[in-house]
């Protein structure tokens, strides 16, 4: 009897201890923890009297790492007082790492970051106000205005735009020719595109072997709604959400009509096989029209074996409505609490100046934030590059509003419900609108 009793309490104790330690691990994970900055050298001066700046990026790939390190090297060679030390952290870790480092008061001195969240970081004191440097050195005018807007919080800059991108339509000219279409003329409106796409489909029995175009291929309503709505994202200029605007419903209907014509299961079956490089469906010849950032050109160049392709802006809803597209990109910042902001600024200035930006654009085929570098005639000799720079004029950056930074998590599920036929277009969008309005009022 006694034995049994003690045995029982032992198991209970074990169960309780286990539960405690597991729960503790769980809550411990959310409490930030100490800075993960053990691998960095102390921000300070090196033995030869130079100021050492820690610079964090996630560019560790075979292609990008040598490019960023060459830029850092060139900078270091030009300096006798500053030494920039580049550290690479995986994209999945770097932002939480930076957050922990900033909160511990020991951040890197220079950091690449997402262009859509600058205001969030500025408002949370995670980035340094650069006003005095920007005014002193007059750097504002080197950037595209659309990009410059993204770094402002209460009219003060908290970062410098570094690179950007834009979504365009890549199309297979040989497919166009084979279908009796003019390969030099990409459809101008969405309706024309749908008609063109139907001519490019190929079927064997009731299965598609080739699909001309689907707005669900590497693109979705989040892109089309902005184009249909005259370049306006989910918020009006006054900050009010406009998720259920009529034009956004039309964009959704357009996608649904295309899905009805092709069959959603056929689209899903195609998407399940999508890969990258050689296995990219556009490069593999399974799809004739493909939406992507213009950097996709490098994949065609490297894996497409002289593919005969063209690039065009997104269509417009009707003649003159505008070929609006969406872009993203990154900014370069001085995290809040850096011990050497003056020196870090020198590096920021260098990285966004013509020379470094031209080098970055040339090597990565990225769009860069510096206007002069973007318009470099050597670079513009490449037709795709020129088209991408031209397209920036109609490209919108969609920063997260401070009033509802995670609004997209409320819109996407409604979009999914509509796409799955569980809700009507209007019902779903009204719900999304109501949810976003509620989020805004919660955050007040």
């Amino acid at each position: 009897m006694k034995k049994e009793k003690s045995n029982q309490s032992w198991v209970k104790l074990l169960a309780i201890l286990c539960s405690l330690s597991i729960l503790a691990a769980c809550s411990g994970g959310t409490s930030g923890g100490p800075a993960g900055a053990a691998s960095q050298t102390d921000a300070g001066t090196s033995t030869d009297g130079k100021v050492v700046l820690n610079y964090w990026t996630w560019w560790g790939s075979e292609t990008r790492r040598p490019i960023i390190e060459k830029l850092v090297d060139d900078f270091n060679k030009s300096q006798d007082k500053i030494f920039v030390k580049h550290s690479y952290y995986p994209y999945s870790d770097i932002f939480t790492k930076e957050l922990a480092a900033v909160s511990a008061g020991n951040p890197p001195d220079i950091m690449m970051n997402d262009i859509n969240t600058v205001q969030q970081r500025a408002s949370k004191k995670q980035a340094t106000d650069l006003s005095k440097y920007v005014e002193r050195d007059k750097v504002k005018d080197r950037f595209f205005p659309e990009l410059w807007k993204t770094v402002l919080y209460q009219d003060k800059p908290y970062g410098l735009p570094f690179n950007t991108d834009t979504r365009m339509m890549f199309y297979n000219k040989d497919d166009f020719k084979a279908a009796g279409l003019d390969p030099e003329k990409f459809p101008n409106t969405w309706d024309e595109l749908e008609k063109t796409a139907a001519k490019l489909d190929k079927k064997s029995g009731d299965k598609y072997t080739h699909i001309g175009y689907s707005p669900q291929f590497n693109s979705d309503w989040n892109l089309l709604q902005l184009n249909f709505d005259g370049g306006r994202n989910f918020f009006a200029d006054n900050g009010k959400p406009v998720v259920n605007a009529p034009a956004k419903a039309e964009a959704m209907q357009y996608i649904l009509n295309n899905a009805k014509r092709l069959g959603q299961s056929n689209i899903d079956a195609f998407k399940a096989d999508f890969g990258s490089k050689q296995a990219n469906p556009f490069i593999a010849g399974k799809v004739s029209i493909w939406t992507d950032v213009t950097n996709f050109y490098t994949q065609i160049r490297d894996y497409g074996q002289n593919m005969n392709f063209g690039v065009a802006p997104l269509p417009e809803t009707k003649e003159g409505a505008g070929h609006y597209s969406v872009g993203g990109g990154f900014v370069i910042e001085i995290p809040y609490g850096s011990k050497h902001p003056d020196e870090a600024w020198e590096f920021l200035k260098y990285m966004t100046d013509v020379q470094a930006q031209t080098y970055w654009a040339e090597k990565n085929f990225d769009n860069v934030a510096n206007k002069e570098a973007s318009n470099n005639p050597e670079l513009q000799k490449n037709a795709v590059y020129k088209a991408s720079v031209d397209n920036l004029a109609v490209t919108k950056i969609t920063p997260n509003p401070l009033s509802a930074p995670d609004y997209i998590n409320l819109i996407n599920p409604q979009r999914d419900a509509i796409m799955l036929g569980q809700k009507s277009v209007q019902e779903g969008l009204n719900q999304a609108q109501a949810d976003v309005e509620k989020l805004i009022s919660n955050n007040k």
Partner: protein
Amino acid sequence: MARTALRYRGSALSRREAWQGYIFASPWIAGFLLFTAGPMLFSLYASFTNYDITSRMNWIGLRNYETMFSHDPLFWKSLWNTFYYVIISVPLQTAGGLLLAVVLNRKVAGIRIFRTVFYLPSILSGVGVYVLWMMLLSPSAGLVNLMLGWVGVDGPAWLTDPAWTKNAVILMKIWGAGGMMLLYLASLQSVPKRLYEAAELDGAGRFRKFWHVTLPMITPVIFFEIVTGMIGGFQIFQEGYVMGYNNEPGAPMNSLLFYNLHMFLKAFKVFDMGYAMAMAWFLFLIVLALTLVNLILSRLWVHYEGGDQ
């Protein structure tokens, strides 16, 4: 009686031994206070503030809790998703592990190899496994639906149909039931032979022996697995983050937005750390309550009668 009295007579020796005991345990105690209890209490306090890690920490009373219960649609969605997962997966995994253990408790040639094979999935973890399963679960080209097709079943669109995504994750988790199997196997082998012999003399068949001898004897381990499995189940997170449709966390239709994923997104994407800590504490209370219920219910079905008498 005499021995107990002797032990409790508070001799210098026993006091010194107790003192030494605490010294030996002190690294753990220090670690617990510093790295577990401390942060936990901090998070309890911060859950009543608008803490955002870097710029503010002002007392806002119960506002986070109020937002959670009455203004955040994703809170209830994520709580439901997590409950669904726990309710279905814990019994299935427990039964699956037990079944596996019973099957692998045979004495046949090569059984060690089988045991290894079935145990292996539980040491494989992380994103690699999820990516593998995402391929297996692909609606048209995946192996799972291909095999279902052989028996005439038209498989669902696992990770794209919101009605099936959680089931897909549960299926994947059952594949890892080998970890539980190991404990069951150990406890199965410690059931005394003489009990089976006695049952056989009484004319018990294979099933009756299992039901009346094996099962009661291993209930402590089943209980342990259910408690820890449940606690672990409430922590499900990565699956929703990695396996979301189109790389969107929790997609489609937030059907994979688990509680901890929602908490993570609030904490680290919009820096609403106070809110996330309030969520963490609510989950802590749920799990604590359920664990206590489990402990109470265990009196009804768990038999403590070790095989070491």
